[in-house]
Structure formats: structure tokens, C-alpha cells
């Protein structure tokens, strides 16, 4: 990792930041969240690969780095399996007295 790569990465990160903020103001409807998350993943990958030197690390270290994110993905996808498919009618919750604790 040389000073050159660091500042090139920094520039790319700044451009991506500008891109993601700009994309938020474009009315893409339901696409806004995926686009902003994709850009965030790109920025995170740059920091992981270059700044945290995963590019120069042994496969074992790379697998440790990937494990955390992979398990987080498991959690998001499987809780999503419930939340994306749940269509229940919300009852009026105002009628529930809240205990004065």
C-alpha cells in the first residue's frame, strides 16, 4: 500500500460519497435504498481491501473479514423472509391502556 494508492482510494471514496448523496435526491422510488446500499458496499470494499490491506493478507485473514459480514447477511435475509411476507392487519393500539409504571 503506497501513498499513491491511498490518495487514489480517498478520491474514489469522495466521488462515491457525492454520488450516493446525489442519488438520494433523484426520485427512484423503491430503488433508492438498494442504490445507496450498493454504493455503501463499494465504499466499504475499498476501505477493506486497500486501507485494511486485505489485498495483501493471507486467505485466512480474508475469510475472517468476510465471516462477520456473511453472518450479518444471514440475519438480514432470514428476518426479511418474515417481514417481507407478513401482511397482517394492525389493530388499534390506542385502546390499550399503558401501565403507569
Amino acid at each position: 500500500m503506497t501513498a499513491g494508492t491511498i490518495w487514489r482510494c480517498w478520491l474514489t471514496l469522495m466521488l462515491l460519497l457525492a454520488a450516493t448523496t446525489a442519488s438520494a435526491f433523484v426520485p427512484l422510488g423503491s430503488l433508492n435504498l438498494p442504490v445507496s446500499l450498493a454504493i455503501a458496499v463499494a465504499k466499504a470494499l475499498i476501505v477493506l481491501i486497500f486501507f485494511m490491506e486485505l489485498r495483501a493478507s493471507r486467505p485466512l485473514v480474508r475469510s475472517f473479514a468476510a465471516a462477520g459480514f456473511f453472518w450479518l447477511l444471514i440475519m438480514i435475509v432470514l428476518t426479511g423472509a418474515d417481514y417481507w411476507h407478513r401482511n397482517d392487519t394492525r389493530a388499534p393500539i390506542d385502546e390499550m391502556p399503558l401501565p403507569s409504571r
Partner: protein
Amino acid sequence: MSDRVLGIQYSTLAQERETVTLGMWAFLATEVLFFGALIAAYLNYRIWFGAEFIAAASLTKVALGTANTAVLLTSSACMAMAVITFDAGSKRAPVLWLAATALLGLAFVGIKGTEWFLEYQEHLVPALNFDLPRYGGIAEIFFIFYFCATGLHALHLLIGISLVSWLAWRIGTGRLQPGGSTTRLIGLYWHFVDIVWIFLFPLIYLAGRNM
């Protein structure tokens, strides 16, 4: 690190360096899941509540958020510069880069603090003075996530700043010679805190900007 006597469980310095790096990455994996649980909860509510959540998100200050992200990304670059200059053997350059990193970190916390103060004035702080009748309970949930996530992140950042300053002091006073892995570890931790913010920024600030 090299002047420190090698632990009895290590046979070579290289083995210690690899072990300590692996240990740090394992710790970062736990931190990913620690913050990840909060982000997963946020995403589920974002899917489930959708409209009210996005409406609440539009009350956050995207200008300050973007500025903060730029500050933190720059501090990450400075930290990386500190690591490579320290390995290259120089003594003054890493201290300067580490000082820059710490200052940028403090700048981030400063901007964050002002943002919280503004939100306090706008009565957006749950449990303290939250009153936003327009959206009912769900907006308050958004702001609970907002304050929990940014609070925990700021706490981790303060720990990072103190580590970086301690490191700068040790390099400055010559107590730390190149060859060990302490600098690299603190660098990994700092970059991790930056990655958490990279994911928090779009989720909090960019939702509902084009209503």
C-alpha cells in the same frame, strides 16, 4: 513490540504478529455483528413501516451527515498514511498523520454533537422531549435507532481517538519501534469504525430525500 519479551506461547515474532492480527479481525467480526444487529432491526422496520419511517428520516440533516462522512473517510486515509510511514521507519511523519486522524475524529464528533443539539432543540430526542404528533410512535422508533446507532458509533470513535493519541505519544517519545503490529491493529480498528459509518450514513440520512 520487538523489545518486549515474546510470550511463552509464541515461538517466533512472525507467529505473534499473525496471531495478533487474526485476533483483531475476529474481534472486528464480533463488532460487525454487534452493529449489524441494530442495522438489521432498522432494515426490518424500514421494510415494514416504510412510509412513516422515511418521513421521519427526512428530518435528519443530510448536509451535516455528508460532511461528516467526508471527514471520517479522510481520517481513514490519514490513518493509512500513518501506518505506511511508520513502517517506512520515519518518526515525525506518522505522528503528524496520527494527529491529523485524531483531529478529524474530533471534528466528526463535533459535527455530530451540533447535530444532536439541533435535534434536541427540534424536540426530536426520544424519551427526553420527543413530540412529533404528525407521525405517532413510528417516527420515535426511527429516532431511537438514530440515537442508538450514532451514539454507539460516537463512543467507538472516542475510543479510537484515544487509542490514536496514545499511539502518537508512544511513537513520538520513541517508546514504540517499527516492526511490531500495534499501529496496524489500531489502524484496522479505526477503519472498521469508518466502515460502520459508511453503512449508517445512507440508512439514516439518505432515506426520503425525494419525497
